[in-house]
């Protein structure tokens, strides 16, 4: 990447014997909304704190805006952070909190006040300037934390699960606001979340992390359509997995015999599969067609029996039990006009899908 705002080169972090981050290398582009996605404990916060300068990497190089960050303390970095706990100063008013970092900007008092006002308006806290932290709701605290960081006009804004403490409705509202705010201010956002839906909704690109490693970095669509490994496939969205053994390979295309039964064809996700590999043939629930009646089993086609149906309004979720598979196969159908339900629990059905919808994933 040319002229990235952030470059991580083999960054590692150990706490004693515990390796919290293992050889992290990637770039973040200017103006990008970049998310770190992963289960709790995978090292997202640690990575963010290294970017902020609160934590020092054990090894490796971090460059922000072209400058190496080794030895640069947090207060001299062009980054600001929205903490997971918001870290609102309890002894200061909303206005004093938001203006906290402005004393270090070379601006006049009047300009500082104008910028504070502007930030208060930006995050819709008008009229609350004189309140203190404990008189604010969770959503309002989150806005104060956001304004306090943005008002310093950092080159990079770091956000550590800023929405996880909010209820669902407020969270969705704030997601929209965050996204449009990021477009307005044009600052690079590095956003930490464990919520894959949130990451998919907001981000330009997402790094999926597990166990201190980055598994895949891609656009939301790329992650969903072309996960490069089993962990990513399972973490992002729902995935049906059919264990199989590869019997034929043609470039990226692979044919595999189902284990214990069935026959599948699909496209290799990471490195091309080789004959004899034990793999999962992976299919997203919405790519599967479902037909009433026990049809002939064939390539990318299995017979099963509906074990449950959930009607969700715009779509229905079917769980179909297939002989030889431990987990039932999930099938999502849009409830389009004129389309009735396929069947009720207990009904025999046939599932089929296109080979371009099948990913061949290494069985870990």
């Amino acid at each position, binding site marked *: 990447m040319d002229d990235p705002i952030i470059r991580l080169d083999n960054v590692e972090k150990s706490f004693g014997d515990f390796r919290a981050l293992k050889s992290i290398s990637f770039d973040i582009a200017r103006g990008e909304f970049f998310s770190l996605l992963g289960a709790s404990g995978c090292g997202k916060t640690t990575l963010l*704190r290294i970017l*902020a*300068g*609160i934590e020092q990497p054990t090894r490796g190089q971090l460059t922000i805006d072209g400058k190496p960050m080794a030895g640069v*303390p*947090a*207060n001299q970095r062009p*980054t*600001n*952070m929205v*903490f*997971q*706990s918001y*870290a609102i*100063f*309890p*002894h*200061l008013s909303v206005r004093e909190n938001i203006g*906290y*970092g402005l*004393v*270090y900007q070379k601006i006049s008092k009047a300009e500082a006040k104008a910028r504070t006002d502007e930030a208060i308006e930006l995050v819709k806290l008008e009229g609350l300037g004189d309140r*203190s*932290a*404990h008189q604010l709701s969770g959503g309002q605290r989150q806005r104060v934390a956001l304004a*306090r*960081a943005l008002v*310093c006009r950092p080159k990079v804004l770091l956000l550590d699960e800023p929405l996880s403490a909010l209820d669902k409705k407020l969270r969705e509202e704030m997601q929209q606001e965050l996204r449009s705010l990021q477009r307005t201010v044009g600052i690079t956002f590095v956003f930490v979340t464990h919520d894959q839906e949130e990451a998919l909704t907001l981000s330009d690109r997402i790094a999926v992390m597990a166990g201190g490693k980055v598994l895949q970095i891609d656009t939301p669509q790329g992650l969903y359509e072309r996960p490069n490994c089993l962990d990513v496939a399972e973490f992002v969205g729902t995935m049906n997995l059919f264990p199989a053994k590869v019997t034929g390979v043609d470039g990226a295309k692979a044919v595999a015999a189902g284990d214990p039964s069935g026959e599948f064809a699909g496209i290799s996700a990471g490195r091309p599969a080789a004959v004899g590999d034990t793999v999962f043939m992976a299919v997203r629930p919405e790519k599967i067609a479902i037909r009433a009646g026990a049809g002939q089993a064939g390539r990318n086609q299995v017979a099963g029996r509906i074990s449950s149906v959930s009607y969700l309004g715009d779509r229905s979720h079917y769980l179909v039990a297939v002989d030889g598979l431990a987990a039932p196969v999930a099938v999502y159908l849009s409830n389009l006009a004129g389309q009735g339900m396929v069947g009720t629990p207990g009904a025999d059905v046939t599932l089929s899908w296109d080979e371009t919808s099948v990913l061949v994933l290494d069985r870990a």
Partner: protein
Amino acid sequence: MSAGSTRTGLSLLSPAFLVMAATLLAPVVALVVMSFWSQSGFDIDRSFTLKNYARLVEPGEGVVWYGIRFPFAYPVPAVLMIKSLAMSFVATICVIGLAWPMAYFLAFRVIRNKAMWIILLTIPFWTSYLLRVFSWKIVLGFNGAINSGLMWLGMIKEPLEFLLYNPVAVMITLAHSWIAFAVLPIYVSLEKIDRSLLEAASDLGDSRWTRFRRVTLPLSMPGTIAATLLVFIPTVGDYVTPTLVGGPGGMMIGSLVQQLFLRQDNAPLGAAVSIVMMLIIAALVGLFLWLIGYARMRKRIG
């Protein structure tokens, strides 16, 4: 809170209230009542009089003490009051000055075995107050540890007499006796500070020192104020320390009250002195809290 739970709360509190009323309120009431009586010979005259209070402010020739004129016919209580306040003030400053770094160290630098450190800190309190004061007498005394040590080292020929029986000895002893009481509230208020607040301050541009000044110090104020009052209020009226290590020059107002009650046989006057002392301390504490904007701070920090 509903009426029911208020009642439950009150009934739960009532044993504590009773004990407090018996041990705190009753003596104060007795003291107030007594201060309006008078002593005549060996008997106490129980008719109401203001003469004890009048005696304390009765104009007269007076004395000059450290350049301050006390124009009273009976100036001893006034002089001792001012002197006690000054000595307690200095002792309190010393206590807070020593306790603060200890509390800070405990809260921010000690990671493991915090409980052990806190227990170590309280070890001096396993012995009685009297014993601790006595031990200072041994340290500072004519044949005490400092004098024998210095003489053994050949640094002095004669024991230093100025170590004991003066206001400085009283202040050192007071400071030592109260330091652990001051460390604990300061420690608690520092320990309570969310570490992410400090990280946020750094992130927003603070250096270590500005962060200390802008976040740590203000957030420690409730504990620091509590510690200040906890030391200042009881030391003003202390009489054990001045009696044991103060000598005639180190006398404080508490010593006078004790003398009035026990030796000079004028309990009503002693009661009046106590009451006036209590009122002055209360007024000073009120003024202090008002000056530092305690109400506003409490609203914020809670």
